[in-house]
């Protein structure tokens, strides 16, 4: 009885449960405010938007899990870079898709590795390093695209993201599920995943069992870049064309989605299922706020306050006097 009770309490207090409950509640609010909000096609639409955020947040997730104030603020510019590169590789042609995916994933991956090297070996704090990298990528994008990106999405890609593939569900949602499966497998069944949790939970202990802490930390920033680049491909598929700051709007939500999903900002605890739920909840929240006709400023303030409130729950530091 007692253990059952405590199990139920644990389930109620679980961030994943909270995120799912919040999503449902927000859907209901949306439906009340504007009938039709929770319609099937509308939900698919919301999930499509959530999927792009979810893919970016996958990278943000492992970076935050890895601890030591891990955060990747360069994901926004890396999404833009991925989108612009993919657009140029495809140029509206279906035959360009494979190359687009390779280039738009590969180059952000390499840039992410540079982030990781700066953070691990030069010891620049993650936030400053990735913010500095953002400026460089934005500069690079201006040079590369001469200010106005020229490429366009291939019809096949746009259809894959915007049109139903089977059962009224677009292809991107299947991709998201596949990415989720990979994330869950890596985090739960591979030594790399175990090591990410280990360095995030206790870097000292991880060193003391002989884990290659620096290599792992460098790699996770690389993977964050990879996910951002792939999200960029999705973004251009979703919108058809791109502009050089198209990814900026994903930076803050990617961090919040991870934290809502129960991943601790201190690292070492959390997982991708929660982050997925967080991405969905956040997307619905955004949609509700738009339905409410809330201004940009109010949405921004609500986002900031959400993050502060989450810090109160999960992100406090230790006291000095015992």
């Amino acid at each position, binding site marked *: 009885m007692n253990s059952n009770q405590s199990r139920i309490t644990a389930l109620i207090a679980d961030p994943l449960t909270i995120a799912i409950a919040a999503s449902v509640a927000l859907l209901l609010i949306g439906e009340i405010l504007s009938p039709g909000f929770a319609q099937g096609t509308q939900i698919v639409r919301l999930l499509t938007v959530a999927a792009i955020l979810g893919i970016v947040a996958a990278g943000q997730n492992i970076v935050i899990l890895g601890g030591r104030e891990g955060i990747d603020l360069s994901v926004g510019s890396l999404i833009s870079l991925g989108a612009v590169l993919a657009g140029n590789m495809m140029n509206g042609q279906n035959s360009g898709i494979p190359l687009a995916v390779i280039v738009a994933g590969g180059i952000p991956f390499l840039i992410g590795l540079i982030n990781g090297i700066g953070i691990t070996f030069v010891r620049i704090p993650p936030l400053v390093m990735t913010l500095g990298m953002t400026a460089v990528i934005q500069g690079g994008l201006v040079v590369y695209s001469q200010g106005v990106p020229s490429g366009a999405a291939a019809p096949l890609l746009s259809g894959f993201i915007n049109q139903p593939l089977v059962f009224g569900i677009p292809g991107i949602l299947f991709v998201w599920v596949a990415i989720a499966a990979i994330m869950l497998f890596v985090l739960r069944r591979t*030594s790399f995943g175990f090591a990410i949790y*280990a360095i995030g939970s206790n870097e000292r202990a991880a060193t003391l069992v*002989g884990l290659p802490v620096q290599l792992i930390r460098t790699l996770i920033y690389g993977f964050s870049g990879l996910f951002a680049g792939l999200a960029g491909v999705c973004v251009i598929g979703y919108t058809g064309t791109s502009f050089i700051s198209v990814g900026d709007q994903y930076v803050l939500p990617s961090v919040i989605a991870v934290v809502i999903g129960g991943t601790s900002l201190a690292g070492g605890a959390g997982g991708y299922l929660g982050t997925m739920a967080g991405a969905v909840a956040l997307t619905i929240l955004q949609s509700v706020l738009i339905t409410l006709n809330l201004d940009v400023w109010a949405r921004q303030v609500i986002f900031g306050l959400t993050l502060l409130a989450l810090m109160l729950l999960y992100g406090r530091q230790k006291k000095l006097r015992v």
Partner: protein
Amino acid sequence: MTNALEAVGITKTFGAVRALTDGRLTVARGEIHALLGANGCGKSTLCKIVAGAVAPTGGTVRMAGADVRFRSPRDAERAGVALFYQELSLIPQLSVCENIFLGRELKNGPFADRKAMKHRANDLIALFDGVCGTGLNADAVVGDLPPDQRQIVEILKVFAQDAKVMIMDEATAALDGRQSQRFFEILKAKKAEGVSTIMISHRLDEVFAVCDRITVMRNGVTITEMDTASTTRETVVHDMVGDVRAAAEKVDFIAGRAPSLTVENAFSASIRGVSLVAYPGEILGLAGLQGQGQSALLKGLFGSDPFTAGSIGFANGAVQIRRPSDAVMNGFAYVSGDRGRDSAFQGRSIFENIVAALMVQKRLKIIWPSQLKPQVNKVAEDLKTKFAGLDMPIGTLSGGNQQKIFIARWLATAPKLLLLDDPTKGIDLGAKADLFALMRQQADAGATIIFYSSEDSEIIDYADRVLVFNGGRISAELKGTDMTSVNITRAAYGDAA
């Protein structure tokens, strides 16, 4: 005459651990008072309470007869109590002068009066004239100074407060003979001015040379107070030890065996030339007061704090240990007593906490819990660990059971050399017994075990041989019937047994 300081019935609990049950200390005006006791007897906690750095759970502190209640180190300082911090409170980036006056700067209007402070600092440094070596001046950056000079700065920081009561907790640990000598001369001069000193030291010689009175603590309780002149070393050691323990019959491992581990002339920040051999099947105990080099030796062997000089031989070959992964690949295992800091992957499952070392050693890429769990379960069950399931978070276990998990982590790798760094710190008696049974079992299976314990009784009961550390060196090697608590305590305080 009222006493400078009186502490009566002081108690302190940290979580479930009782550090002090009845701390008592009476220090007269203008005396040097030694506070002695074995590791974990509560002397450091008592000092920190008197200095306002730790809040007491109960009890009264009086200064010059009046009750005082300190909320912070600053409160205590205002009342005239200054504490020397064993873990240095210096700021490496600041100069000697800035450190000495940190938080109590001399001012000229709103500005820091650098000239006056520098003048004062140089006066203070002059106290150690001729013994402090070169390079110690008011403008030197503390981070650039060698350990002995840093310790002198920390001492000067206490002197600068012109306190009525100074607490010197192992203030001479990093000083050489001449520096300590000078330090005691200064204390005697201060005594003449009416300043009292409470001294914690790991050198019994010092205590008998300079202290007027001695308070002995044991297990969180003040046992006796006495005048130094009317007591003997034997009495003091016996009071610290309590019931004298002697080892039971010990097997002589050295006869006819080849050593598995040899360390020659090892140096690091806190060990100064340590050589030793250890044998397969042997449990080698390391004893002495805390921080005398025992942990540093184990960390050096494991590569987490590598030796700066010296050589390590293991299983008939020289080995290079530069980082922990080198040690893991050589079949070494290290279990720390500081579980929270060095071992626990907090928030992760018991399973993950156990397989961490195994996956490094076996270079596993993919982990199938279904394959590993039976094996992991067996190791954990051999240790009589009580847990609801391998998927429960590590934090759901008691301290003792957690420690068993961290030992299981290494047993899963079948280690050839097991380094245990005060592994029983803060765990219950039942768990301790299980742990020692397991150590013996591993030793019988051919592993070499080196274990440091802050509790001498554990060493006497479970080690086959003991090395006692004092000031970064081995001060005695005890075997067979020589392994008594009295001999260990004497060697720990720097007296040859």
